[in-house]
């Protein structure tokens, strides 16, 4: 069980080590290393997802470990309240950034082993504090530099702990 302590409250997460072993281990390692402490949810789109775990409050992108293999072909679905890894257009490019689905986003699921069908790997779900997620998805957002959908008032992961 992992808890993200945010300035909006705690989000409790259960990782799926059975279905997404590499992705879950990767996330746990970042938590243990304290990587997420002080990172923000920098991309918040109501009706879609909230994304974080890569930038500091000053919008500095943190240096990550190497990219990981995409395990999106594990059968887990991008349903409301699930956690999945963010990535670039390269399917196997996830590092630390993750997102929490705030809607059933079936179009993000794996549909084929090519760059348009790989999908986004679900590796866990929110088991407590969904109200905090819902509060976050509703915050006011705007543009900041090259980024859009940035919360006007930062949603900060003050620390992440393992119980």
């Amino acid at each position, binding site marked *: 069980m992992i808890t993200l302590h945010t300035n909006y409250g705690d989000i409790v997460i259960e990782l799926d080590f059975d279905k997404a072993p590499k992705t879950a281990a990767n996330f746990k390692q970042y938590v243990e290393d304290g990587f997420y402490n002080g990172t923000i949810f920098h991309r918040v789109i109501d009706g879609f997802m909230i994304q974080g775990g890569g930038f500091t409050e000053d919008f500095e992108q943190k240096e990550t470990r190497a990219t990981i293999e995409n395990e999106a072909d594990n059968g887990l679905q991008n349903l409301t309240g699930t956690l999945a890894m*963010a990535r*670039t257009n390269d399917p196997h490019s996830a590092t630390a950034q993750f997102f929490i689905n705030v809607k059933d986003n079936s179009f993000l699921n794996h549909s084929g082993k090519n760059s*348009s069908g790989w999908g986004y790997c679900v590796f866990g779900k929110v088991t407590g504090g969904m109200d905090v997620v819902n509060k976050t998805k509703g915050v006011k957002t705007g543009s900041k530099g090259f980024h859009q959908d940035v919360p006007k008032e930062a949603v900060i992961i003050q620390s992440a702990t393992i119980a």
Partner: protein
Amino acid sequence: MSQLFISDLHLNDSCPHITRAFFHFLRTRAIHAEALYILGDFFDVWVGDDDDAALAQEVASELNQLNQQGVAIYFMHGNRDFLLGESYATKAGMTLINEDVVIDLYGTPTLLTHGDSLCTGDAQYQQFRTMVRNAAWQQEFLSQSLATRRAIAAQLRETSQSMNSMKKEDIMDVAQDEVIAQMQQANVTRLVHGHTHRPARHILQINDQECERIVLGDWHDHGWCLNATSSGLTLESWAI
């Protein structure tokens, strides 16, 4: 006789099977056609006609052979290869056509467009599009050395390498109101485009008139083309 429409091959060095499949398509299918329309994102990236990369040269030579055998080839820019210019087109035996050209397809006026201008829900992308489709921006870009241009292209790719590749479902597709607006403006009942990688044939009503929007497919595991003959249209795909 037929006219063939393709788009979104995204030809690049790391996917030689797509290039092979395309050459096969030229030699076995396109050779029997009267015209081949390429509606953009034919190349995955284009930094200028003076780029001496082998892939572009091979493709030009294949296309030119096809043209020599009497097949007209028309090329429309996509959001990846918008810098492809007259000089390369000439070398490849292609005629450049403008985005949103209307052709007479066996009696039906048909609007052709790449498709990215229809995706108005993606404001961030439209902003980028406005920048790179600007003549002054293009001129300045093309005035740089080839090495610099390659570096800028890599940098632009890097920016799109941000971890924000997942986008809300509806903004990645065309906006229906923009489809209707562009079709009305062009006064057509049929639209053919690519870009969205969502191959399909959609029937829609505009002013009580039945209209059709045909979306070409991207080449990945499958090749795609729209085959138009005097007896009708078929959207075809085959494993590659």
